[in-house]
């Protein structure tokens, strides 16, 4: 048997039509679902925010508070100084403190210089004065 007669006898038209419809509708559904996937994910990721009461956030960023305790400043800056070596330029320490997002680096470096923790060796080079780290700091602060 050949030709259209063979197609009809073997149910070919129905198979081809049903097959094409099924594969098409399957991929249409899949494409629709994946087109919504990122929206659904975004919805679920935002949901916890909706449940919690909104915080009162300021419209601008407040500067971080300046650490009043000089010991706290020393604790923050000591690892940077150790990384820079025995002597260093003040600009290097300033840059590193900015990169590490330390509060008010300019004022802090001035305070460290005034308290003789940062000592100038001349020619713009500075060093860390370890003798002032413990008791002397208390005296300076006091």
């Amino acid at each position, binding site marked *: 048997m050949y030709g259209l007669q063979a*197609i009809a006898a073997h149910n070919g038209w129905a198979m081809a039509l049903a*097959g094409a419809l099924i594969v098409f509708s*399957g991929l*249409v*559904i*899949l494409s629709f679902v*994946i*087109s919504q*996937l990122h929206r659904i994910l975004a919805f679920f990721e935002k949901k916890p925010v909706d449940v919690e009461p909104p915080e009162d956030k300021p419209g601008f960023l407040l500067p971080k508070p300046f650490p009043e305790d000089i010991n706290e400043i020393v604790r923050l800056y000591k690892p940077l100084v150790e990384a820079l070596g025995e002597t260093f330029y003040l600009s290097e320490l300033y840059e590193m403190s900015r990169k590490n997002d330390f509060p008010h680096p300019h004022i802090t470096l001035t305070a460290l210089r005034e308290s003789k923790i940062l000592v100038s060796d001349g020619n713009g080079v500075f060093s860390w004065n370890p003798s002032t780290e413990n008791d002397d700091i208390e005296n300076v602060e006091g």
Partner: protein
Amino acid sequence: MELFFQFLSNTGFYLADYRHVIMIVIGSLFLYLGTAKHYEPLLLIPIGFGILVGNVPFFKGFGLGIYESNSVLHYLYFGVVTGLYPSIVFLGLGAMTDFSPLLARPVLMLLGAAAQMGIFFTLLGALALGFLPKEAASIAIIGGADGPTSIFLTAKLAPHLIGPIAIAAYSYMALIPVIQPPIMRLLTTREERLIRMTELREVSKKERVIFPALGVLLCCFLAPASIPLLGMFFFGNFLKECGVTERLAQTARTAIIDTATILLGLTVGASTQGDVFLTPKSVGIFLLGAVAFSIATASGVIFAKIMNAFLKEKINPLLGAAGVSAVPGSAREVHLVGQSEDPENYLLMHAMACNSSGVIGSAICAGILWSFLV
């Protein structure tokens, strides 16, 4: 002297006939195309060598041939006739596939669906030419341009046709650079080929992780017969994307898929013994395969043009040709044709989206046809 003549009468030289010679020439051609022309070497070289191995004439009954139940080749062929190798290949394919372009532009999945129309047109054509329904379905799946899927469905419906169908499917996959560009150019205008696609959005890791789980459920609920292919395909992809099984994904996309491809190619090649392979049916299969592949390419391109009539943001109709599942050959061809018109037009990632949806589409088609005809 008698012993010597007896030995001579058992050699391949004495037993060979013209069919063996023809098949050895075809095998050598495959090896040449793969080695010298770099046409799908990973497929054509194992198949070509398998054709040489399978067409060495031998004395029947020694347990040497692939169709003799106690031969080594027959044991290796077990993976083909049971559909084992195609499933393993799909695992590796899944572990290789990046669905990000498809997730970023889901509308391109429709082109993967449209390109499957070649399968159903060829089904009608094969029935009209007098093939039985199971044979017609096995031939039609060549239109999906997916070797493993073709082998899988043929193994289930018409195992006696595995050789010619596998050879036809892989041949047309290798001949993509010859078959597809003329059809693409014929069906599109220069202005259409110049359409540039917008940049794809970034896809989150969560989307990529969820997609394989979602895909396997949706597709396999719709066509459960596609579980052996799509189950493995999406599983491989989940291994890749979940982020905690990189070692397994790496093995799946290298050692496992390579082993399966070697054994699949070699045994499919060896199954083309001249006396079994060279029949009028094989010629019909090759002709219908070419028709199937051409219709699939044309359907994708035409559907993309139809979509453009409704879409605000036009898509390049060349992408429709990548809706067949020959990964990544057809995507690469679309990109090259696009670049031949406009060297700054980058269609590759968009074409890969169509290509990966073509893989899913052809596996669903195989599942549908199998469930229709068992």
